[in-house]
């Protein structure tokens, strides 16, 4: 059934993957250029030790907390008789619509003394736990209840079933969600900078602001890239073993709900508290400040909206164009080679945005000065950073379009190109639209790469928000914050709907 891919398709995919690997090349090149002695001098400093301990601590503490919050909420709303389950299932995904840096700004204006590791943990775990909650929810819905029923019939308590049967089956969801949270924590800038918590990413931005794209920023970037690779490696190792425990396919019937009994009020209290801290607190201050905004800001807001739309639209189109060939290769011609090429794409996009940005500044300035400070470069950054969003969606979409339809059209006398344009592409349209929407919304909230790469005179919602928030101009930042939240809602709704879709 699987035919080998044509040479042309392979060439396109290889060329694109080389482009996607520019940031990886930059990290390697920077290491060679700076040289080990100077690198050691730059890195063996007390300050770097502080950054390392902060970064590692937020990973070690933040990832488990988000997993507990995410899995706990998913289990409560999906597998128990919790009153208001449907309401709480939406409450638990809502924080995803608030960019972490907006949430941090909201918190800082309510609790001005918020800072350091504690502040970082509070803001980041509340912002990111939905990233674990969503896959956990999808998995719980898809689990085959017969395993639990067997366990029950063997006399296990509900608690033992949860720990010994349900949780082990969630391993893939936990690892996947945990990986995304860890990569977010490594890449986060705005949320941490706002509350005086320094990680490698915040320090790279400061180094950039102090010395531009010099060796001081690059050396910190090398460490950050290494940390990302370590996180990826740990997840891959853990997943390799976890496969055995995974029982995949969707169930034909829903599982029996666990009765919470006397614990129900406690569960309601816990979910309400998390929801309040994650959504109500930051949004209340955003709304309160927006009431104090002066109307003459609306003109600036309008300009920023236009710039943001144009940039994120070109990022979305670019990501679709880049993702389509590799998605095609992966679904229509699966092989070891196609998996390797696909892996190349995902390595580049797990590097934090700040490294992608540093790489593109350096490469365009030295190799392609014509592209320096142009929309094309920002677009390239958005493609590299958000490609997985497009790739996953397009791959799923392609897998659902039967090849036989296209063949049937050809059998009826249509030339292959016409057959593809008239049959496959229209069927793929919903997936293309969803992929574009997800990338565009990610790009609209992007801060670091936009700050470093945007053409002179560009003002996006995120950069304008950041500029006002940095000067503690809370009312000035509020309208941008609200716009960013409103823009994010459709993407979150889309993601939430996808989890529901997996039920049946």
């Amino acid at each position: 059934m699987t035919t080998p891919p044509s040479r042309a398709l392979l060439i396109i995919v290889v060329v694109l993957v080389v482009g996607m690997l520019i940031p990886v090349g930059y990290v390697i090149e920077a290491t060679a250029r700076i040289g080990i002695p100077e690198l050691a001098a730059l890195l063996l400093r007390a300050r770097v030790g502080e950054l390392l301990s902060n970064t590692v601590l937020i990973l070690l503490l933040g990832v488990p907390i988000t997993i507990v919050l995410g899995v706990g909420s998913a289990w409560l709303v999906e597998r128990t008789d919790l009153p208001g389950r449907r309401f709480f299932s939406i409450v638990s995904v809502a924080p995803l619509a608030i960019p972490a840096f907006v949430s941090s700004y909201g918190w800082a204006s309510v609790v001005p003394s918020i800072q350091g590791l504690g502040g970082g943990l509070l803001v980041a775990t509340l912002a990111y736990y939905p990233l674990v909650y969503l896959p956990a929810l999808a998995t719980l819905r898809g689990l085959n209840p017969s395993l639990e029923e067997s366990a029950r019939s063997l006399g296990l308590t509900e608690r033992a079933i949860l720990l010994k049967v349900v949780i082990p089956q969630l391993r893939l969801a936990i690892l996947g969600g945990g990986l995304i949270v860890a990569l977010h924590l490594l890449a986060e800038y705005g949320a941490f900078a706002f509350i005086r918590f320094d990680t490698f990413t915040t320090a790279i931005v400061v180094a950039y602001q102090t010395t531009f794209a010099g060796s001081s920023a690059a050396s910190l970037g090398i460490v950050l890239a290494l940390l990302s690779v370590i996180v990826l490696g740990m997840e891959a190792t853990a997943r390799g073993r976890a496969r055995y425990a995974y029982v995949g396919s969707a169930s034909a019937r829903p599982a029996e709900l666990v009765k919470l009994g006397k614990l129900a009020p406690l569960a309601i209290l816990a979910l309400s508290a998390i929801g309040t801290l994650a959504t109500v607190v930051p949004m209340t201050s955003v709304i309160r400040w927006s009431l104090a905004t002066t109307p003459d800001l609306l003109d600036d807001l309008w300009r920023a909206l236009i710039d943001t739309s144009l940039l994120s639209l070109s990022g979305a189109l670019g990501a679709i164009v880049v993702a389509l060939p590799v998605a095609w290769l992966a679904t229509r011609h699966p092989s070891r080679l196609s998996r390797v090429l696909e892996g190349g794409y995902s390595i580049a996009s797990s590097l934090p945005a700040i490294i992608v940005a540093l790489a593109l500044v350096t490469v365009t300035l030295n190799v392609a000065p014509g592209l320096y400070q142009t929309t094309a470069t920002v677009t390239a950054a958005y493609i590299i950073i958000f490609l997985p969003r497009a790739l996953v969606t397009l791959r799923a979409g392609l897998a659902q379009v039967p090849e036989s339809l296209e063949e049937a059209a050809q059998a009826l006398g249509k030339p292959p190109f016409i057959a593809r344009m008239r049959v496959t592409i229209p069927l793929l349209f919903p997936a293309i639209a969803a992929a574009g929407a997800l990338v565009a919304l990610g790009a609209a909230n992007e801060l670091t790469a936009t700050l470093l790469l945007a053409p002179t005179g560009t003002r996006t919602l995120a950069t304008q928000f950041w500029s006002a928030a940095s000067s503690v101009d809370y009312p000035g930042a509020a309208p941008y914050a609200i716009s960013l939240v409103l823009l994010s809602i459709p993407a979150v709704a889309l993601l939430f709907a996808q989890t529901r879709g997996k039920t049946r």
Partner: protein
Amino acid sequence: MRKSLTMTATLAAAILLLSSCTGTTDPGSDGAVEEASEEALVVYNAQHEKLTEEWVEEFTAQTGIEVVLRNGGDSELSNQLVAEGDASRADVFLTENSPAMSLVENAGLFAPVDPATLDLVPEKYRPASGMWTGIAARSAVFVYNPELLDESELPSSILDLQSPSWKGKWGGAPSGADFQAIISAILETQGTEATSEWLAGMKDNATIYRNNIVTMKAVNAGEVAGGIIYHYYWFRDSDSGGENSGNTKLHYFGGQDPGAFVSISGGGVLKSSDNSAKAQQFLAFLAGVSGQTILGEGYSFEYPVGSDVPAKDPLPALDSLDAPIIDPSTLNGPEVIDLIMQAGLL
């Protein structure tokens, strides 16, 4: 095989579509995102965005010349200009402090400023080389919270703040060019060793904030007793209700202490500019009566330095601050940043 060829064709069409979207932007213009024309003056602006916008609005009204701003910090934009070299699209560079101007001047990237513009600014507010000119000035101050710090306990010199008795009692923003300029004054007046010691003391004693406003806000909220900032943050906030400064007072070090440092904000025209006549015109506008009056009467509360325009009420006169006498072109930005990094503050 044919299947994939058609796929290629589809892709090519899509890429073409994309490049026609992004590529209203041929390299050289800034494209779809940019409304301004090719002719617009590109200003690398490290001054406060709002101040430069006030300037630009008036300049465009007077001359019809469009201006676009690339905003950033002193060090970022100066290092960026050096990295860009002759390929830079910048026509004019404006800073808050002089070390960044020196960096660009030492890289040989500035064109001489029109003599007529230099004549508008007294010699002490510009470098002898004439490669750039002062356009504004600001004074370092110690902002403090009288509830936490009695007037009798105030430091008589910025150098006092390194002593262990100040541990946990003051804050500052060493990642900002403002603070780095103040340290360059310490370096210039006290030498490398004393500056390293002072910075080590700061690392032990001070709470580190992101910028001057956040420092002032923390002092106002009583999180820390005092802080080193520039004067105008306090006057601006105080003028608009004092939300972040109402509980605080200013202490001027005076006596030619390095803490009484007056920093010169600079403006210069890039040698590589394709628009140098307009760029020189813009600089002349800034140093002239119109530009300086915007400083003297607008929102900024920075000190005018040219065309005999007075400072805004209630600022004390610039001459009365008894600042140390330092040639702005001698301040060494890169060495200061090295020292700050060695101290572990960056």
